């Protein structure tokens, strides 16, 4: 592991001051190659600021400070959809996207799956989760089992609730379409990364008469979900969903911290626009440069 020697730390502090004053960092070339990317110092500072903000909010959430979140209509509908499935005696279909676990949207989808599984466990509603990748299968089985155990319904849990169906994108879509028309789930919940199969899935579910809730951060797929689903979570609403549904301090604090960061970004942009318009914004503008 690299350790920053004292001399280099002093150079780093000196360069930081120069950078804030708008000058080129001294000794940049010698240090870039060996230890530190000076051209990315701004990113590091923002990363530290953002992390501190989020960690502070998580701390407050854990201490029990009341943290307000506005209602997100699509999320309110999740419980309603599961309730409808229970009344109709039909299953709930949950798809955590079509990408691997190394996509943050998939992680968000799996996290929401945990909450949905708690509701299906509570109402004893059948749950079906077809997946496309083995790691998502493993993670999905873990969170669903955990949810059923927490609700005291471990006996109702079956590993087959989360099942691998196909590795190829359209083979997956064809199989899920088959499930939709044969098993006739009362509710379809799509949360995660979706691509060209988004409309194939949502339209089939719509034709089968299921209530549909979708969430993705892919702008090119959102219009299809908006057209074919009853409720849609757009972009960051997907990431907010798990915090909103669970109200766990860790997630809630993270979400509140991100809200403050958004306000900081808006302030930075407004200040930047004013300074650039007045013709004195070069230094401020340069703070957001990433170099090569």
């Amino acid at each position, binding site marked *: 592991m690299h350790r920053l020697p004292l001399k280099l730390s002093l150079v780093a502090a000196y360069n930081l001051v120069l950078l804030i004053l708008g000058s080129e960092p001294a000794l940049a070339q010698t240090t870039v190659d060996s230890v530190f990317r000076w051209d990315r110092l701004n990113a590091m500072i923002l990363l530290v600021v953002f992390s501190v903000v989020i960690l502070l909010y998580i701390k407050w959430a854990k201490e029990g400070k009341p943290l307000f979140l506005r209602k997100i209509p699509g999320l309110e509908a999740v419980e309603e959809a599961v309730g409808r499935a229970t009344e109709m005696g039909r299953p709930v279909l949950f798809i955590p996207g079509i990408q691997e676990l190394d996509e943050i949207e998939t992680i968000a989808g799996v996290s929401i799956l945990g909450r949905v599984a708690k509701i299906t466990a509570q109402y004893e509603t059948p749950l079906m989760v077809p997946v496309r990748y083995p790691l998502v299968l493993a993670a999905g089985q873990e969170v669903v089992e955990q949810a059923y155990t927490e609700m005291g319904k471990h006996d109702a849990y079956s590993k087959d609730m989360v099942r691998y169906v*196909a590795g190829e994108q359209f083979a997956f879509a064809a*199989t899920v379409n088959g499930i939709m028309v044969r098993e006739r789930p009362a509710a379809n919940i799509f949360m995660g990364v979706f691509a060209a199969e988004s*409309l194939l899935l949502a339209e089939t579910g719509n034709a089968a008469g299921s209530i549909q809730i979708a969430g993705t951060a892919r*702008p090119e797929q959102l219009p299809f979900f908006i057209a074919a689903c009853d409720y849609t979570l757009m*972009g960051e609403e997907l990431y907010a969903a798990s915090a909103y549904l669970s109200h766990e301090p860790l997630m809630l604090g993270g979400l509140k911290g991100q*809200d403050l960061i958004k*306000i900081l970004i808006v302030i930075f942009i407004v200040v930047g*626009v004013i300074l650039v318009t007045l013709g004195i914004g070069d230094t401020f503008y340069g703070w957001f*440069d*990433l170099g090569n």
Partner: protein
Amino acid sequence: MSGIEILQIWVAAFFTLAIFSFLYKDNPFFKLAEHVFAGLSAGYYVGLVWKSIILQQLWYPMMAGEWLLVFPAMLGALMFARLVPKISWVSRVSLAFVMGTTAGVFLVSQLNGMILPQMQATMLPLVLSEGAGATLMALVMVIGVISTLIYFYFSKEHTGALGVTAKVGVWFIMIAFGAHFGYTVMARVSLLIGRVNFLYEDWLGTFLLIF
């Protein structure tokens, strides 16, 4: 064209039509195509992972002396613990590793690749020498970015000035979705044209050879 090639075209045409038949309703032809497609893809991916990951990215480099690869190999092997219920919890180590690194890598990549460049790209001068059109575009860009960010602010009810700004943001989002919708539909239509073209030229073409 050889007999084998004609057979391949007929098999592809049969499965294309079998999948299209779902447009009418679920039927045995669609079921057959669906199961063949799913089974083939599972088998294909096993072969693909074996060759391109296990052999090319793990085994060959390790044989060439890259012994650090033993760590990812161990993380992968831990996943097999799921087959033994008593020690299945061990596989959580690999899952936690993937989820943790994804979140960490994503944090930095989003900051470097999205947040900072977009902030900079939005800091546009609102008085431009290039004329009123350019100034208007800059204004639209600044208002669009800020109002959209406000829409995704969850800590306050969207009422009053915040509500109006969020509503403006929704308009920007919907206009962007409209553009995406048109663009993506065009791409899907080109996929359909490709399939219809295959049926019309390749498949119907074989009729002339056979009959």
